[in-house]
C-alpha cells in the first residue's frame, strides 16, 4: 500500500504553451514509518508533486497509485475518500479556518468523512491535544488567536481526520524559531509514537538534517535524488542541487578547516555538541 508514482508528469495549461511542473517521476512511499523531506528550489514542482498524493491533481501522464486506488480514476470512481487517508496541510493553512469556534473548525474534516457528531468531537479533541491547543480555547473564535495558534488549529483540522499519511507543505513557514521547534516536535512525536509516515516540504536544511530519514530532491520538475539524508549530504553532485548544507555540518566543516577537528557528520545540534565534548576531552 502507500503511494506509488509511475512515470508521472503533470503540466499546467497555459495560454499558448503548457508548462511542465513535474516530469517522469517514479516514487514509492510506504504507509508506515517514513519521514520524508522534499526539497528543491522555488518552482521545482514540490507542491505539484504532493498534490498528487491526495488526488487534488491528477497526472497528465503516468499513474499514481494511492492506497491501491489508481489515478487518474476510471469514470465514476470516487476518489474523495483518499483525502482522509492522505492528509495534506497546505502552506499557510490558517487561511482555511472558517467556523465559529475552534473545536467546530477542527471537527469539519471528520464530519465531511461521515463521522457522527460525537465521534467527530472525540477526534477533534484528540487532535487538539496532540497539537497542544488548550481546552479553554475550544469555544473561542479561530480568528481571535495568535498566528502560531491558528496554524496549530489548522493542522489539527487535518490530524482530526486521522490520516494514515500526513503531508505538510512548508508547515513552519513564517513562524518564529520557537514556534518552528514546537511544531516540528509534534510531527516527530506523531512519527515516533504511531510510526505515521510524514512527508514534509521545506527549504530549511536544518529541519531536513534533524528530522528527515529520507530526502527527495526536485530540480526543474525532475527527481534528481531520492535516498537517505546521509547519502544526500555526501553526494558528489550535491552542489548541483543548489541546496544549502545544514548548520551542524557547516560548523563541522569549518572547524576541520580552521582548527583541524576531524570531520564527522552530525545531523543535529545535540549530537554536534556531544561530539565536540568528546573531541575536547581527548
Amino acid at each position: 500500500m502507500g503511494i506509488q508514482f509511475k512515470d508521472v508528469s503533470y503540466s499546467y495549461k497555459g495560454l499558448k504553451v503548457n508548462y511542465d511542473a513535474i516530469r517522469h517521476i517514479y516514487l514509492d512511499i510506504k504507509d508506515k514509518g517514513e519521514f520524508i523531506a522534499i526539497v528543491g528550489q522555488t518552482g521545482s514542482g514540490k507542491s505539484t508533486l504532493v498534490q498528487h498524493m491526495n488526488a487534488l491533481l491528477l497526472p497528465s501522464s503516468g499513474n499514481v497509485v494511492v492506497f491501491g486506488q489508481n489515478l487518474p480514476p476510471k469514470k465514476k470512481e470516487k476518489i474523495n475518500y483518499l483525502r482522509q487517508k492522505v492528509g495534506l496541510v497546505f502552506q499557510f493553512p490558517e487561511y482555511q479556518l472558517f467556523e465559529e469556534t475552534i473545536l467546530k473548525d477542527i471537527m469539519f474534516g471528520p464530519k465531511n468523512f461521515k463521522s457522527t457528531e460525537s465521534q467527530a468531537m472525540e477526534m477533534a479533541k484528540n487532535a487538539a491535544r496532540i497539537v497542544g491547543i488548550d481546552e479553554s480555547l475550544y469555544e473561542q473564535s479561530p480568528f481571535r488567536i495568535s498566528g502560531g495558534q491558528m496554524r496549530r488549529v489548522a493542522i489539527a483540522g487535518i490530524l482530526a481526520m486521522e490520516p494514515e499519511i500526513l503531508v505538510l507543505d512548508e508547515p513552519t513557514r513564517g513562524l518564529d524559531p520557537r514556534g518552528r521547534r514546537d511544531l516540528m516536535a509534534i510531527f516527530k512525536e506523531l512519527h515516533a509514537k504511531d510510526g505515521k509516515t510524514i512527508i514534509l516540504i521545506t527549504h530549511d536544511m536544518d529541519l531536513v538534517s534533524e528530522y528527515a530519514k529520507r530526502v527527495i530532491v526536485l530540480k526543474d520538475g525532475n527527481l534528481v535524488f531520492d535516498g537517505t539524508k546521509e547519502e544526500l549530504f555526501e553526494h558528489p553532485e550535491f552542489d548541483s542541487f543548489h541546496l544549502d548544507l545544514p548548520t551542524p555540518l557547516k560548523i563541522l566543516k569549518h572547524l576541520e578547516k580552521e582548527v583541524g577537528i576531524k570531520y564527522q557528520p552530525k545531523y543535529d545540534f545535540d549530537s554536534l555538541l556531544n561530539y565536540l565534548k568528546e573531541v575536547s576531552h581527548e
Partner: protein
Amino acid sequence: MNNITIGQYIPGTSWLHKLDPRIKLLSLVILLVGTFMIPISVDLIPLITMLLIFVGIMVLTASTGIPMRKVLNGLRPIVFLLTFTFFIQLFYVRTGTLVTAPITMYISLSSMTGIILWLIFYNWSKKYVKTRILYFFFTAFMIFFIQAMLPYINFSSYTLYIYDEGLIRAGFIFVRITNVIIMTSLLTFTTMTTDLNYGIESLLKPLKVIKVPVDVIAMMLSLTLRYIPTLLGETEKIMKAQASRGVDFKESKFKEKVVQIISLLIPVFVISFKRAEDLGNAMEVRGYVIGAKRTRIDEYQIGFADIFSLIVACVILGLIIYSRAIA
C-alpha cells in the same frame, strides 16, 4: 478556474492595438449608438446598413490578427438569448406575407421522444463540434423541425405561421446583437485593462466639475481589475485546502453544498480584507494621497490614425442619422 477571463487582452501590434484608448472607447460608444439607431424595419436601407456594419466589423477583426474563433466565442454567454429572441420574433410577428404554408406542429408521443433523443444526442456530440454556437442554434431549429415531422400518436397540435417580416426582423435583431457583442469584445481584446481604465478616467474627467471623484473611481476600478486574478488564485488555493478536508465540490447534496460554500466564502473574505489592508498601507507608504495630482509613466498622444478613426466613426453615425431622417 482559469477559463474565467476578465482581462481578455490578446497581445498584438495591429493598428487597433496601437489606437489611443480614449479614442477607441469614444469610437466604440459612437458606433454602438449608431447600431442602435438603425430602426428595426423591413426597408432595404436599414438592412443594408446593418449588414455593412457586420461586414465592416469582420474586416476590422481580420485586420487585427485576432483569431475569428476567439471573437465568436465571445458570443457564447448570450447564445441562449440570441436563439430565444430569434424564435420569438420569428413566431410572433404576424405582418407581411406568409413565407411558407402554415405548418402544423404536433405534440405527440413520437415527436416528444424524438426531441428527447435529439437532446441526448446533442449533449453527447457537442464536445466534438467546433462551432458550438451554430450547433446550439441548429438544435433549437431541430426541436421545431421534429415537432413538424413526427405526427404519430398525437396528443395536441398547433399551427405556426412564418411571415417574411418576422424572418427579417428576427435576422435583423440577431445581427444587431452579434454586432454589438463583437464590437465590444474587439475593444477588450485589443486594449489592456490599464489602458482601458485610463481611457475611462480621461473621458469621465469633465465630471470633475460637478465634484465627481473621477480619479478615485478610476483607481478603484483598476485595483479591482488588478485583484481579480489574485483573488481567483486565492480561491483556488482555499478550494484545494478545503477539498483536502473532505469537501467534495462536485458530488454532494444541496444541504452539504451550503456548508461547503460557507467554508469557501469566509476564508476568501478574510483574505481579501487582509489584502486590502496591506495594499492600502503599501500605497500610503509610497505616497499615494487621495485627490493629489498624479503623473503617469506612459503619456498618450493622439496621432493621425486616432483622429482618422474618430472621424470615420462620426461619419458612420452621421450617415445612419441622415438615413433615419429621410426615411
